[in-house]
């Protein structure tokens, strides 16, 4: 492919390859210039998405060792053993930019991509969680995006028959021009069927099965098309990737059957980078090479240029290394599932990815009259890809978390005189970020598979494991508000909340997957946010003794109007040994005592209350004590295991008042609570200090529960009892002295709201914010 009118040095820049990177490419090619096809292959493989060239040095610092870890980062998904010869595979990934362009297809293909990462390893996908972030819900553009993304997630997940059991939906102005669509998938496998993404055994066949290849998502490289064809023919233009969930369903069944019957030596899904990525990664992992027989690749349309075939991101395709004597069996399986299948190359021993036009001979060597179009060392495109040491500089003006016991900020004295706490609570419950997500998750099939014990709506998702007494518990959480003020703290808080959501069910968190959504890494302040975020992620995981088993990095989340708040999205999977011991958040029995564990620390920055009351995020965020967080989670797991706990709910968005309201609404039971305000009413009622939870216990167990908390060195207080048809929070005597005026705006008014009113505010808040009739 020669390009007369585009000088090569100019071409590489237009492909997004810097001059420095071009030199690095030359080094890896023994000094020669790459031809256009090779340059196209490098341009996709050295993209941030495929090469992690900016984040690699940071990610190396994360803890990856842990009990039961079978595979960690580097494989398609993390795999952790859960006993009984079973293991769980899980991973979270972003599809932010495609979803901004075409919300339905962007989200749909995002789901398809992460599912392939799971079943590629031999695991049957059993759950999806979708973590979504958008701008102002009143903005028509946002509403269009939310509608499209939610339809896309459902349209794909529902059809393939994997339940969507959880996720997040958060609105913040910083996402207005750049929504976040992060999707986590979980799969279950027999450990003996673990399959790796490698292409071992020179002489083995490279088999491509699934959809035919078209011009999907050629992206920036499309300029090669205009460069290659004399006139710029629009039909040669790259096109939006369209997902086919029906094809994916067939792909799942065919792939699991191939693995079960031991017909493949290695398996890799095709995602970004298409055939180039799948062949170079599997060859590099196995220390082999691959010669690609270009003509053998099944096409969806005529006239594809070699580079288009090599980097096309057509969906629903898989690449397998197959022993020649098993080819017929593999072909039969694909035929039965109605999937196109072809031998598109051979595994070689030269460590190169070679691309041949004109066919291979029976011996797998280029046939007579065939032409070699490209030859690149597999490692050069993967393990030996360029790595950039980026510059990180903190912003000049930066507020850290306050030292414990530091004086409360002025805004902590909100709500102002006369502001009725009940009204504040109802406003929070009805707000776009805290109201019920029902109108969204009711568009998802959350029960297919007949394993869903707890679906979306009330904290972590719970899936029983058929044939055992076990259950898997999963949650996703990402704190963006605090990250804006202190990215280390934002990331650490995200890990704390995601793991806490799992622990309060009684389950033991097994590991962490993460999706790091940040800005342009070439800008020192954005790269500082990323490096602080990774540091917070690592510190939190070490403190909690959890391995990071995988994840995904999404950078350049910026738009003309600004850049997103740093958003470390954390996915956690936990194991409950006996599903019968599962504890939920809802109040269950009249008369149970309510125990508050942990205490409020000053600071409202990043809280839902701050947003509502108009407190600037320049205020301090509440501090996080990782050792205490670990103790709190260990405590609640032991308390549940010992049968002391009836219900448990963590204090998160909206603070203690919202947490109590949720327990009441979900249980259909009210409560009477007395609180002694340590700092200020706002901080105690609506502040989002971490490491706190509400547990209820039978009166006969309350003392034992309190004692256990003390043994873990945790602040603990019996604050009231379950009962009645309303939530009542009254200040304990100490706080109630003197007139409201006298206490500098601190109220002593009783908060008292009937459950019906709480429900009314919470139930339809989201539909109201989005202007959806419901």
């Amino acid at each position: 492919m020669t390009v007369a009118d585009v000088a090569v040095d100019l071409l590489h820049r237009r492909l997004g390859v810097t001059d420095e990177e071009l030199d690095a490419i030359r080094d890896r090619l023994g000094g020669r210039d790459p031809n256009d096809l090779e340059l196209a292959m490098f341009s996709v493989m050295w993209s941030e998405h495929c090469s992690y060239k900016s984040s690699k040095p940071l990610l190396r610092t994360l803890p990856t060792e842990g009990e039961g870890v079978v595979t960690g980062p580097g494989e398609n998904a993390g795999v952790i053993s859960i006993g009984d010869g079973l293991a769980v595979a899980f991973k979270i990934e972003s599809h932010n930019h495609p979803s901004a362009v075409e919300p339905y297809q962007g989200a749909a293909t995002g789901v398809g991509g992460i599912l392939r990462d799971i079943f590629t390893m031999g695991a049957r996908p059993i759950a999806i969680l979708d973590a979504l972030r958008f701008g102002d819900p009143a903005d028509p553009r946002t509403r269009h995006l939310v509608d499209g993304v939610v339809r896309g997630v459902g349209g794909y997940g529902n059809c393939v028959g994997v339940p969507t059991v959880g996720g997040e939906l958060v609105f913040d102005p910083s996402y207005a021009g750049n929504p976040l669509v992060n999707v986590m998938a979980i799969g279950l496998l027999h450990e003996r069927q673990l399959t790796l993404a490698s292409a071992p055994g020179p002489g083995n066949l490279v088999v491509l099965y699934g959809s035919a290849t078209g011009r999907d998502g050629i992206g920036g490289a499309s300029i090669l098309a205009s460069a290659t064809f004399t006139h710029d023919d629009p039909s040669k233009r790259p096109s939006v990737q369209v997902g086919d969930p029906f094809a994916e369903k067939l792909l799942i069944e065919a792939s699991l059957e191939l693995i079960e019957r031991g017909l493949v030596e290695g398996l890799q899904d095709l995602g970004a980078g298409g055939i180039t990525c799948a062949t170079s990664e599997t060859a590099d992992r196995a220390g082999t090479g691959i010669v690609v027989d270009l003509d053998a690749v099944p096409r969806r349309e005529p006239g594809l240029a070699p580079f288009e075939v090599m980097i096309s991101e057509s969906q629903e395709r898989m690449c397998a290394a197959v022993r020649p004597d098993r080819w017929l069996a593999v072909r039969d399986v694909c035929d039965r599932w109605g999937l196109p299948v072809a031998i598109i190359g051979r595994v070689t021993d030269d460590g190169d990815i070679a691309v041949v036009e004109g066919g291979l001979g029976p011996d797998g060597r280029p046939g007579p009259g065939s032409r070699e179009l490209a030859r690149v060392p597999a490692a050069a495109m993967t393990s030996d890809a360029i790595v950039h040491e980026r510059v990180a500089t903190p912003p000049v003006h930066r507020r850290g978390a306050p030292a414990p016991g530091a004086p409360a900020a002025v805004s902590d004295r909100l709500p102002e005189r006369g502001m009725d706490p009940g009204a504040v609570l109802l406003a929070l419950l009805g707000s776009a970020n805290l109201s019920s997500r029902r109108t969204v998750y009711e568009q998802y099939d959350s029960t297919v598979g007949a394993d869903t014990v707890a679906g979306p709506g009330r904290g972590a998702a719970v899936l029983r494991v058929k044939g055992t007494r076990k259950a898997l518990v999963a949650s996703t959480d990402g704190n963006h508000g605090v990250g804006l003020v202190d990215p280390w703290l934002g990331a650490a808080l995200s890990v704390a909340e995601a793991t806490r959501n799992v622990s309060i069910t009684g389950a033991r968190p097994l590991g962490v997957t993460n999706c790091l959504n940040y800005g342009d890494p070439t800008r020192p302040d954005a790269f500082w946010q990323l490096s602080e975020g990774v540091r917070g992620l690592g510190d939190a995981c070490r403190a909690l003794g959890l391995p990071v088993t995988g994840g995904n990095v999404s950078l350049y989340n910026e738009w003309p109007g600004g850049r997103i708040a740093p958003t470390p999205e954390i996915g956690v999977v936990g194991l409950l040994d006996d599903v019968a011991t599962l504890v939920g958040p809802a109040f269950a029995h009249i008369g149970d005592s309510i125990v508050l564990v942990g205490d409020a620390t000053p600071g409202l920055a990043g809280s839902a209350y701050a947003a509502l009351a108009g407190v600037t995020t320049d205020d301090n965020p509440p501090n996080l004590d990782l050792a205490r967080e670990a103790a709190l989670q260990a405590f609640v797991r032991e308390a549940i295991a010992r049968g002391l706990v009836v219900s448990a709910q963590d204090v998160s968005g909206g603070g203690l008042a919202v947490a109590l309201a949720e327990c009441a609404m979900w249980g259909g039971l009210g409560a009477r609570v007395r609180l002694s305000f340590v700092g200020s009413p706002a901080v105690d009622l609506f502040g989002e200090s971490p490491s706190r939870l509400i547990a209820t216990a039978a009166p006969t167990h309350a003392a034992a529960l309190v004692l256990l908390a003390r043994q873990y060195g945790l602040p603990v207080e019996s604050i009231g009892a379950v009962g009645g048809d309303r939530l009542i929070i009254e200040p304990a005597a100490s706080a109630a002295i003197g007139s409201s005026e006298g206490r500098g705006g601190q109220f002593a008014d009783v908060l008292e709201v009937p459950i019906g009113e709480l429900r009314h505010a919470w139930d339809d808040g989201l539909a109201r914010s989005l202007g959806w009739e419901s």
Partner: protein
Amino acid sequence: MPVRIGVVVFPGSNCDRDTIHALDLAGAEPVALWHERASLEGVAAVVLPGGFAYGDYLRAGVIARFSPIMRAVAAFANGGGLVLGICNGFQVLAEAGLVPGALLRNTSLRFAGQEVAIAAERADTAFTHALGVRRPLRMPVAHGEGCYYADEAALDQLERNRQVLFRYVDASGDNAGPGNPANPNGSLRAIAGVINAAGNVAGLMPHPERAAEAILGSDDGMGIVRSLVESAARVSGSAAPAGVGAR
């Protein structure tokens, strides 16, 4: 010898394994039947499971209706064999004309994934006899095309013939017609399931197989599964299933 019940597997079926699991719990011997087979292998009853056969492209259930096995299913049904269609299976039966009516796009134009309450109109059929007294049954729905439609005359006749098998009901136990929030898809006259005139072929949109164990939040669906298994055992003369139940 537990009774053998066939579960048809179309490309895109995704509730086949759940259905097999529930039939297993109910004491039957489930048999997966690949859609390209021409025979039902002598099973005593057939279930068309939920899912998105052929992606539900074009119209839910229409492409699956032409799968080879559907000829055998039609013959089996016309010969009096017991056939139950759940969700997508119901849509396939309707497209094949084995049960009356059509299932249109939900009037909300959105997928409906939620728990509903339905009430059996009859306790004297092969699919409902084990349900006992008429009380609301809680189970999930998960579909985008579940709005039951037939013209007024046909609906009147259905009711005269007592062919309405299940209706959506609201909290107060009343039938939930179109517009009632307890009706997830706008189905006319609150119809959630119907039975053919002969009484041997039935379809419903809700998923009894997902509500067959208390741990999943409801075992109300087990009554429907058990009804089918016991009826199948009777016709096939197999011993009545032992250890029937949700545990």
